[in-house]
């Protein structure tokens, strides 16, 4: 095993472990909450499998083993999801562009990620002579570790919450906020002008988009009355007449929050159309210019894992977490629903990447500060209104929806008109 991956995994598990024992007594008595024995066999299958392995151990060791299994399961599942995602992205991009995508390795290209991995592992690891070797090495490791740490608080299913924290959402974004530091380290340590520009861009971009990202989910926290991810998911349970789920995205403030959140998430995970730090047509590869081989692969992995984590959080906050969309479909295990929603969002990321050109850095920051932040602030107001009017019924329900919709759509149209006054399609004259 290369030292980089060893360090990354050990670092990630250390981070995850060191935190849990210190606060374990208070926050998470067991890694997976147990007890709800009434749920279906399929629902409890992961827990049963785990207990079959660790059931015979004495208590403190059992707790440790359970934690380790949770960590290993998350890393393995999301690492293989990362591998499949790289393939899926290339296949989908290919199909969008009227071509097949990678199809020579394995059956229909299914082994392409393996081939990529072998290629990355066997490549020479080049460090520029003038680089800051320590930071150059640490940057991908820190980035990957931080993006793995964020997975700790996402509820993957009814009984699958690795760590239950009182302020889980805050934890998630605190861990995510530190990733920009790693990107900066990469850009700085490379001693390359393109990398340096990319580092500056990454800083500006991530600072700008942190704010709308945080503001966008506040209405959800208000609606759910909890900062814990489990509490937020629990608040979205139930259906209206067995058909209409109580997801936050189906309320006006929740919908606006979802859209703002997804735009900011695109920017936070450096995905097109906000992939400015690694804009290949301007900055070669940005902060990745001087990386090769396995360190490059680690960056790549961290980017995709970050995307998965943000999508998972979006599912938790807005799309009802692991709840089924219809009451009739509840027999399907909750983690399957979570996976379906997660994959749908990831597909959306890829679809957007296949379509849009890239923004410019000043437009990017302007979009955050002049468009998303005002909308998110107004959305706070909408969220407050929505929370205060939960008891309105009958005719007042229509009034409630009307006011909330006006609060959501009105500012959007007003700000959109401002944009259209500056940029609009033109008509042309002929000689």
């Amino acid at each position: 095993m290369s030292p980089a991956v060893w360090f990354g995994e050990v670092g990630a598990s250390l981070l995850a472990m060191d935190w849990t024992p210190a606060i374990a007594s208070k926050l998470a008595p067991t890694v997976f909450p147990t007890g709800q024995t009434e749920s279906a066999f399929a629902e409890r299958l992961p827990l049963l499998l785990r207990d079959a392995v660790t059931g015979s151990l004495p208590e403190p060791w059992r707790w440790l083993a359970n934690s380790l299994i949770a960590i290993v399961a998350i890393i393995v599942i999301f690492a293989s999801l990362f591998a499949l995602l790289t393939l899926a992205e290339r296949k989908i991009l290919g199909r969008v562009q009227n071509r097949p995508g990678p199809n020579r390795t394995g059956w229909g290209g299914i082994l392409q990620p393996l081939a990529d991995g072998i290629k990355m592992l066997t490549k020479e690891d080049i460090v520029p002579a003038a680089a800051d070797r320590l930071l150059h090495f640490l940057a991908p490791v820190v980035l990957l570790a931080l993006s793995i740490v964020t997975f700790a608080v996402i509820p993957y299913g009814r009984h699958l919450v690795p760590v239950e924290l009182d302020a889980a959402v805050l934890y998630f974004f605190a861990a995510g906020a530190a990733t920009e530091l790693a990107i900066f380290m990469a850009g700085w340590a490379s001693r390359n002008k393109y990398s340096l520009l990319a580092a500056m861009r990454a800083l500006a971009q991530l600072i700008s988009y942190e704010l709308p990202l945080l503001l966008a989910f506040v209405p959800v926290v208000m609606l759910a009355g909890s900062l814990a991810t489990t509490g937020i998911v629990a608040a979205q349970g139930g259906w209206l007449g067995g058909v209409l789920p109580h997801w936050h995205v189906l309320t006006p403030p929740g919908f606006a929050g979802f859209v703002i959140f997804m735009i900011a998430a695109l920017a936070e995970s450096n995905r097109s159309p906000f992939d400015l730090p690694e804009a290949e047509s301007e900055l070669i590869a940005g902060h990745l210019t001087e990386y090769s081989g396995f360190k490059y692969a680690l960056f790549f992995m961290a980017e995709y894992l970050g995307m998965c984590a943000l999508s998972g959080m979006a599912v938790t906050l807005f799309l009802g977490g692991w709840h089924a969309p219809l009451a009739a479909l509840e027999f399907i295990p909750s983690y399957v629903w979570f996976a379906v929603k997660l994959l749908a969002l990831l597909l959306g990321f890829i679809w957007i990447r296949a379509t849009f050109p890239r923004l410019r850095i000043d437009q990017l920051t302007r979009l955050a500060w002049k468009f998303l932040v005002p909308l998110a602030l107004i959305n706070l107001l909408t969220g407050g209104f929505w929370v205060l009017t939960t008891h309105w019924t009958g005719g007042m329900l229509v009034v409630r929806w009307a006011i909330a919709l006006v609060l959501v759509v009105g500012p959007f149209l007003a700000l959109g008109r401002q944009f259209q006054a500056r940029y609009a399609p033109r008509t042309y004259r002929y000689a």
Partner: protein
Amino acid sequence: MLGTGLLKGLAVTAKNFVGSFHDPKRYTTVEYPEQPTKLPENYRNFPFLVFDGEQPIDGLRCVACKICEAECPPQCIYIIPDRDEKGRPTKKPKVFDLDVSVCMSCQICVEVCPFDAIKMDQHFEIATADRFNGLLLHREDLAKSDAYYHSIHPTEAAQVDEILAEAKRKAEAKAKPAAPAAPAAVKPPEPPAPAV
């Protein structure tokens, strides 16, 4: 409304994504080694020398007149005319080398050849590990039969055959009254002086 342009774009890419599964117009890849496409008849790659009959070297139409060598813009052709024991030209090339690493497939040698002896090939899989000798084609590599020429450029070859037959007929008509001692061998018209 802001965002309609973005949504339209998304709709177009979605249409192409779905279309790539059922509409051949939206799936244009040809997987080359497994599905070779038919080359158009006019396709040209590198020149080759046409020979008549069975013997590749003896049957070459080339008379080593060196017009193509002079006209070739990148000067990739090198010819040494053959001579018999007495030092008279036999109107055959002793050496006909063509450096395909220099050749730019412009077809000017074909256009200037008065004997229809050099034509453009369609064989393009000529990659080699030897950069120098592997890409320097000699007269033995270049000689290909008239039948092969017919198979790759049927229309053009038919026209060439007509022209050659016409020339032969004229030459015979000219040769018959002139010299009964002259051999029956076709005597091609004298090549004009190569351009200086």
